[in-house]
């Protein structure tokens, strides 16, 4: 069975600092991978997704993620965070198109002004 682990439940960084949110997955094949974000009092929104090809995918608001099959990882990065990036970030896996999603536990990001 597939699973997703986000080892850091909470991350705090200062505004302008770089960011990496970690995601590890367990699946024997090549998964479909996503990052969703939930801003305060809003629904979850898709940041980016990976199916195949270039392992570095670009998302909205300057986010990117890098897929590594050898490390079974899909870490999210941003070069310089803004206070408005404070939110809960979910790493999500599907084993094929149309399959139900498996969510990680989420990482709550707090950006200090």
């Amino acid at each position, binding site marked *: 069975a597939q699973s997703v682990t986000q080892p850091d439940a909470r991350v705090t960084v200062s505004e302008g600092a770089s960011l990496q949110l970690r995601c590890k997955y367990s699946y024997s094949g090549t998964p479909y991978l996503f990052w969703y974000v939930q801003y305060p009092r809003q*629904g*979850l929104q*898709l940041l980016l997704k990976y199916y195949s090809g270039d392992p570095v995918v670009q998302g909205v608001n300057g986010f990117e993620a890098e897929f590594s099959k050898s490390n079974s990882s899909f870490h999210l990065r941003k070069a310089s965070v803004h206070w408005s990036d404070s939110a809960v970030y979910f790493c999500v896996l599907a084993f094929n198109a*149309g399959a*139900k999603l498996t969510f*990680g536990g989420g990482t709550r990001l707090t950006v200090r002004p």
Partner: protein
Amino acid sequence: DTTVKQNPRYKLARVGKPVNLICSQTMNHDTMYWYQKKPNQAPKLLLFYYDKILNREADTFEKFQSSRPNNSFCSLYIGSAGLEYSAMYLCASSRLGGGNTLYFGEGSRLIVV
């Protein structure tokens, strides 16, 4: 318009009473989902409709009912609420062939007392 709307946003219910949550989308998506999310936990899929076909997760099969009277609407029904049902309920929709991208509503927060 990529909005998924949920009603009510907040619901206070007494133990043993029924609860009905409503979701609507205007994107003509063929699939609609209900997730349950508790604090510090990943969203848990409860059930989903693909067109008129209802799929319920095995471990929540008897706890939740749903109906989809037309393509745009989907309800989540709890016949007799228990304290353990207190959670945020997230509705989402997607289109087959849309690459598993889900569009989420803002959620309905249910508190059972």
